[in-house]
Every structure is written in C-alpha cells, then in structure tokens.
C-alpha cells in the first residue's frame, strides 16, 4: 500500500443516503404488489410523469400505460414476470398526468416473500425518448429501403404487354416476402418490328438486392434492343453472352426466350440455363420444351453457338415461361415440381388464360414465398373448344 496515496473519500460523506439514492436515482423506481398495485414510487418517477405519489399508490401499474401497452403488459410482461421472476428491456409508453407519453424501457424483478415480508415486484423505468425516436427513424429507413427497391423493380418491369385478337398475355410477378431485398426475376413481352410476331422473355439474375434489380433492368433492355435486330433466339442469346462478358454484368443469368408468329403460331425458342417452357395444346397432354437448351449467360464453358428449337402453338394453345420459384423447393427435387406443373396445367386447362395462370400459380407456389416468382403465359385464342 502506498502511504502517500490519498484515501478514497468515505462513502458516508458523499451525502448519498439510501433514501436519497432511492428518491433521486437517475431512473424511475416502483415497488408493486404481486398483483401489480403500486406500493411506492420515487421522486424521479413523479417528476418524469407528473403523477404524484398520492395518486399513484394503490393504482395498478398497467393503468399508467397506453391501451396498446396494457395489452402488451397483460400478454407478455406479466406472464414473463410470473414465469421467469424477472423481465428486462420491455418497451412501453407511460401516460403522463398531462396526457403526453413517456417512451420507457422497463425492467422488473420479483422479490419473493421472505422473513415475514410480503413478495414485491421492483421495477425500474428508463427514459427512452431519444432512443425510441432513433428506433423509429431506423425502422422508417428500413421500410423506405424496401419501398425504394420494390419501386425500382416495378419501374424496371414497366411497359405495356402486347394485346390483340391474335394473342393474350397474362403475367404473375410476386417478389419474395421474406427479407428486405428484391430479387432479379424479370419478364417481358413485346412486338417484334415489321413482323407479325412477339418476343416472350422470362429471366432470372443471380443474387438479390438493388444491384440484382439494376442488372435485371440492363439485361431486359439489352434483350429488347437485340431482339429488334431480327437475330432469332439462339443468336440473341449469343449476343447477350457477349453483352454480359463485355460489360461484366449479370453473369450466370438464366433466360428463356421465345418468338411467336401471330399469323401461323410458329414458335422458335431457346433456353440459357433456364427451366423449360411448358406447352399446353388443345386435345394434348401438356409438355415441357426440353430442346434448344444451353448454359446460363457467360457461364464460362463452351464457346459454340447456342442451339434453338421450334414448335407450333395451335389456336387455343398456351405457352408458359416461368422462373424456378414456381417449381423449385428446398424440400423436394426439381423434377417433382415440374411434374406438378404439368399436372396442374392438365387439371386447369379449361380455364380462361388469366384464371389458368392464377390457378396454376396458386396451386404450385410456396406459401412461404422465399423466392421470387415470375410466370408469363401467352395464349393463342381460337380453335373452338379449347
């Protein structure tokens, strides 16, 4: 021990009597009966709330809370206190004498009955005004971020779908509801210049968030621009490969691309790493179009020209393009999802195009919505009983 060191001040000389510590503590202090009736309060609580102790003693603690706080108190706070003997960090609002609200963090400990003294509940109240304001700002920022991302995604998907006597197009687009980030699924349908033909596109960019949405916007525009030059499906995917490689954007994106002639029903299509389109023809079993397949965009394997294939959409027939969110689940193999898709198409084939689409999606979609879901249905009217 160093003889020169000044001794620490005698705690008794600090003027901190137990009474003073209690009354003027930097937090509100309450003692309640196990039933929740206020037995004692400190001066800090009085001055923060504007209630004086004469009106507080004998009153139930929950009666100081907002109606919402009373529900929370009865359904969470009181049961937890009973079961655990303590609760910590519960956010509640205390209604002051003038009607204004004190945002507070509340902690309680139950002191069991002992040596003839009755059980009591000790509660401390911390003023959380600034903290609550900051929390509200953070929550607001989180919601805004989500709104912005969804808005961006919506605007990137803008553009009227082609319509007319020769073609009906219906779309379902459901962003995943879990998490804050948007995904990179997209769809498109547009008339090709100078031809009685439309292009149908569904694609899926790897990743999530604003970057994935922006990438999707670029690829969607690039696809539109390239399709307008009359390349046809296979050459269009080759050109997209080059676009992706040159601009280093959207590697491993998957795309299903089809061109449909409105006068003849002739279809040319190609798939870059994408689930196969489904074809529903009048009087036939629904089928998957497994030809014209190649790897995702700029996948870094193989340099040869991509393949494409052809089929024919009969009057009364429908072509379905979709992302894997429709058929893929962690809990089951992809093949099962594809079989279910065919079964649903067969079961709902007599519905109108829009009903057919919503029916199939309703039957197949994952209620948990963990993945984006994008489905495009092109229907060629006519053909009598379809």
């Amino acid at each position, binding site marked *: 021990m160093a003889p020169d060191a000044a001794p620490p001040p005698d705690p008794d000389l600090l003027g901190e009597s137990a009474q003073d510590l209690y009354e003027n503590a930097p937090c509100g202090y309450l003692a309640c009966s196990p*039933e*929740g009736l206020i037995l004692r309060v400190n001066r800090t609580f009085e001055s923060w709330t504007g209630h004086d102790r004469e009106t507080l003693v004998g009153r139930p603690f929950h009666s100081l809370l907002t109606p919402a706080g*009373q529900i929370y108190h009865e359904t969470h706070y009181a049961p937890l206190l009973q079961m655990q003997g303590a609760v910590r*960090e519960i956010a509640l609002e205390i209604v002051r004498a003038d009607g204004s609200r004190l945002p507070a963090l509340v902690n309680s400990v139950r002191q069991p009955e002992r040596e003839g003294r009755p059980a009591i509940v000790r509660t401390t109240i911390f003023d959380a005004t600034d903290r609550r304001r900051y929390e509200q700002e*953070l929550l607001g920022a989180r919601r805004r971020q989500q709104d912005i991302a969804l808005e961006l995604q919506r605007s990137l998907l803008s553009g009227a779908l082609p319509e007319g006597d020769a073609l009906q197009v219906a779309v379902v687009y459901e962003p995943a509801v879990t998490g804050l980030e948007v995904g990179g699924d997209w769809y498109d349908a547009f008339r090709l210049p100078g031809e009685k033909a439309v292009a149908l596109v569904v694609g899926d960019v790897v990743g999530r968030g604003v970057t994935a949405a922006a990438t999707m916007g670029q690829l969607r525009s690039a696809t539109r621009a390239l399709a307008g030059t009359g390349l046809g499906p296979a050459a269009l995917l080759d050109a997209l490969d080059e676009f992706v490689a040159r601009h280093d954007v959207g590697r491993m994106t998957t795309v299903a691309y089809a061109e449909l002639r409105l006068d003849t029903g002739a279809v040319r299509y190609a798939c870059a790493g994408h689930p196969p389109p489904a074809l529903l023809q009048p009087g036939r079993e629904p089928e998957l179009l497994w030809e014209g397949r190649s790897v995702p965009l700029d996948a870094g394997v193989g340099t040869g020209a991509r393949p494409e294939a052809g089929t024919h959409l009969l009057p009364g027939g429908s072509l379905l393009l979709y992302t894997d969110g429709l058929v893929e689940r962690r809990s089951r193999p992809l093949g099962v999802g594809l079989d279910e898709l065919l079964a649903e198409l067969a079961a709902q084939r007599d519905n109108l195009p829009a009903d057919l689409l919503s029916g199939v999606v309703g039957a197949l979609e994952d*209620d948990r919505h963990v993945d984006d879901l994008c489905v495009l249905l092109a229907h060629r009217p006519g053909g009598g009983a379809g």
Partner: protein
Amino acid sequence: MSVLVRNNVMVEGQPWGRPMVFAHGFGCDQNMWRHVWPAFADSYRIVLFDHVGAGGSDIGAFDRERYSTLAGYAGDVLDICRELGLEDVVFVGHSVSAMIGVLAAADEPERFGSLVLVGPSPRYIDDEDYVGGFTPQDIEGLLDSMDSNYLGWSSAMAPVIMGNADRPELGRELTNSFCRADPEIARQFARVTFTSDNRADLARVHTPALILQCAEDPIAPEAVGRYVERALPGSTFVQLEATGHCPNLSAPDETVAAIRAFLGA
C-alpha cells in the same frame, strides 16, 4: 410434417383418461399452463401444444393464408384432436384461444364435451353498442409497439430464436424465451387476434362452457365476459378474485378449483 411436431404437442397424465386440451393465447406458449395442468394429471389425459409461430412449434409450417383468420388456428386444434383420436374433449382455452375453441367446437361439436374459456372476448374493438374495450387506433398502437419490442430480436439472434434442436442451451440463455416468437408471425397473430369478430359464432356452440372472468382484466373486461355468457346457451359464468388477464399464472389454485367444480358438476 406431423401435426404433433408442427404444434409441439406434449401429452401427459393418464393415457386412458378423459382428454383435456390446453391452448395458450397471444403472447407466450404452453408454459402458460405449467401451474394448472399438473392438478388434472392424475385423472385426465393432458394435451399441451403451441400455436404455429409460438414456443417450440415449427415456424416453417406458418402459412400466411391459413393463419389469416382464427379458423386456421381452430383447424390446428381439430387436427391435433384427430391425430390423437380425442373424443369428449375438455378444451381449456386462454384469451384468444377461448374463441379458437369456440370455433373448433362449432365445427366439430361431437369431439368436445366441455369448454373452459379463460378471459374470453369475441371482439376486442368497440362496435356501436358493443363495448370490447379498444378502439381501432389502440390496436394499431399495439402493432407499432410490437415493432419497438422486436428491435431487440436482431437478425443475429434469429437463428437462435428459430430453435436450435442441437443446441438447446442457446434458447435457454435468451431472456423472455417463453414469449419468443417470430416477429412477422407474432405481428400477424396480433392483428388476427385483436381485429377478429366472433360474436356470431357463439350461437353456433352448444357444448357446456365455463367462463372464467378475472377482476380488472384490461383485455377482457367483465362486460365482455357477461356478453359471452348471454350469447353462449347454457354457459356458466364464474367471477374469479384473481386480477389481470392470466389467472392461470397469477392464481392457479383458484383457476384449478373453478375448473374442477365445473367438471365435477
């Protein structure tokens, strides 16, 4: 997915006894019954469970649409009864689960012998002459305040809260673990609970029912309990001395005695 896993069903008591199904309300889990069910374990078959989204239930089984009304939760009760082959059930429902039991008994009356409704309310929001105790703004405020209280449930804690069967000690370390719930699910459950209106369903029930009414219950005031008594044909109303909304925790002896008296009668 087995119903028993989905709802974290626990079976205790006498395998051949009359079944007694305990259903917890909005907020916590089956632990709400810990001081009540043991009193009946010597002669009843005790069935405890967690609603999907609460306690040890399978959160992955949550289906936004199924649980968008109380009927979805009532469906779960019936699923459990079917799975265990329960007949002549004594259904004991606390808070919102009182109405869930009412819906289940209305749909399959033959399964239920008695209903015990602890702090029931068929509608929480005032409506013309009906006084439920809350305004729509009060309920919106509740949903907002739940956001504040779930800020503590950071995403880092989510995997812990979601249940780690292999590391149960993680769950035990959490404070407030009896009331843990996935925030999104809890929010929807709160909305479904406090915006429901099941007044018309009461007339569909003819199962003998006991209404346990607490004193000074801010969630289900006496006027609401009396409404349920009038609307449920042949029901028995018992006023408890217990205060608050959870007599099963705050006054288990009185609660047990009231249920015993009703079932013994």
